[in-house]
């Protein structure tokens, strides 16, 4: 177990750049994620959020820069990192339990059934082990995929717009679930979303990315105590924060690259 020596971030993104041929998806991206915090990444579509997350998961290599986990560079997928995809990404030919055991099968590792049962109980999926994905609702599928990601007890959980396809009510339930799971497991969570509400409810920090090339525009601290009540989330502080983040995102979309670069300079001062 790599212990988190004081002052060292759990995840450190250093000057990360990624190109797809002529397309510069990420450039000079820098970010630190403290252990046991939830950090959300927001930004307009196509600004490189998924690209950044996949690099953090070790699924693809950066063109430049590096990403460190507990001080060591991530060059390939690591068991300490769990990934939750947009859309549940369950294997439709396996039942729910088969999907959750999939990581253990690939690794040739004996599944920790007590932990899995506990997780299933936790997300209210006990009794659905034999059901196939097409027999489960979208929310249930996404809960199953969270169990799958947590089954190997990762210390980092990366989530790529996990609830984007769900309706508003299910989404709020899922947000609470993520908070509860986070309180229980004390993992470090990086959470990509299009929803500023979701980001504010869940995160300790909200990171705004600019598009083309993707880089960090602003990082906002979200100081509200947990568990976060509806009153706090509807209060003035939350409203102001929401407004600033929104202005960041829409400002970029209207005025394009030049203004974004200026704003990014201003953000560095913060």
């Amino acid at each position: 177990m790599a212990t988190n020596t004081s002052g060292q971030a759990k995840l450190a993104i250093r000057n990360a750049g990624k190109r797809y041929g002529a397309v510069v998806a990420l450039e000079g991206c820098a970010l630190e994620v403290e252990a046991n915090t939830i950090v959300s990444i927001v930004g307009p579509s196509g600004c490189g959020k998924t690209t950044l997350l996949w690099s953090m998961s070790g699924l693809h290599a950066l063109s430049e820069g590096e990403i460190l986990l507990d001080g060591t560079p991530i060059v390939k997928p690591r068991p300490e990192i769990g990934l939750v995809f947009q859309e549940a990404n369950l294997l439709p030919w396996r039942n729910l339990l088969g999907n959750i055991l999939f990581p253990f099968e690939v690794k040739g590792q004996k599944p920790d059934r007590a932990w899995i049962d506990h997780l299933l109980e936790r997300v209210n999926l006990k009794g659905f082990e034999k059901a196939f994905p097409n027999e489960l609702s979208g929310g249930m599928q996404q809960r199953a995929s969270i169990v799958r990601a947590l089954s190997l007890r990762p210390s980092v959980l990366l989530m790529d717009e996990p609830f984007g396809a769900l309706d508003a009510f299910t989404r709020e339930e899922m947000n609470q679930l993520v908070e509860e799971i986070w309180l229980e497991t004390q993992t470090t969570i990086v959470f990509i979303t299009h929803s500023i509400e979701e980001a504010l409810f869940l995160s300790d920090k909200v990171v705004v990315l600019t598009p083309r090339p993707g880089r960090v525009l602003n990082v906002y601290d979200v100081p509200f105590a947990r568990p976060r009540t509806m009153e706090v989330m509807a209060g003035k502080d939350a409203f102001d924060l929401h407004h600033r983040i929104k202005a960041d995102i829409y400002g970029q979309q209207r005025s394009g690259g030049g203004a974004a670069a200026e704003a990014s300079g201003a953000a560095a001062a913060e």
Partner: protein
Amino acid sequence: MSDEGGVGGRVGKGLQSLSTFGSGTTRLEIAAIIATAVIVIGGLEAALRWFEVPHYILPPPSAIAVALVGDFPLILPHLGHTLVVLLSGFAIGAGIGIFLAAIITQFPFAEKIIAPYILILVTTPMLALVPLLILRFGFGYEPRIIAVALASGPMVMINSATGFRRVDANKIALARSYGASVLQIFWKIRAPMALPMILVGLMIGAIFGLLTAVGAEMVGGGFGLGNRLTTYSSMIQMPQFFGVVLILSFLGILIYVIFFLIGKKWASWET
């Protein structure tokens, strides 16, 4: 040419939609199907007797049934020969077809280049080669087995390739995120994802194989159900002739049912 799965794929989709026929049939519908059969067969029997149609033109169903039961011991060995040709030719063709599809879909460039040739193999009736094969291999099993393999193989291959081409980047990424090897990705992601289309290919391939087996038996050699057809018709034994036709349609239906059931068991997640 970029058309998903080409001709074989299209046929496959057709057969897939046909499979709705087997699912969710109610008791009433089954009763109606049986009643229709009774009316058609009974009506045919009555009409043929009433108009005194000679047996050599069209024998009544009762005469066919009598001939089928009475001559079954004589027909049975020929059924055996046909099954040997069909099963071994199909096993060889399907095995090679699936294997090539799995390999070739990994190399999109090579796939583009050989696609037209596969299409030619699919669309050419392999029956046309049987006289040549007989010249080379004689009147035994060999030319027939080769013809069946040539007929079913490309069908299996073109449909399997459609299946293997259905890559889902997210599912492969999922496997990779747990450190899966190339082989594990193949067996745990690509193969199950391709299975429904492979089954469609196997079904069409088996039916093409049956056609080709019977056709090849009609061309030469003294055994097999196809040979019985030519023999019975030349001797104007029409009840026996139609008895063999019935056996052949039963074989065709059996092939359909077998793959339908396999699909229901192993590929029902698709729908």
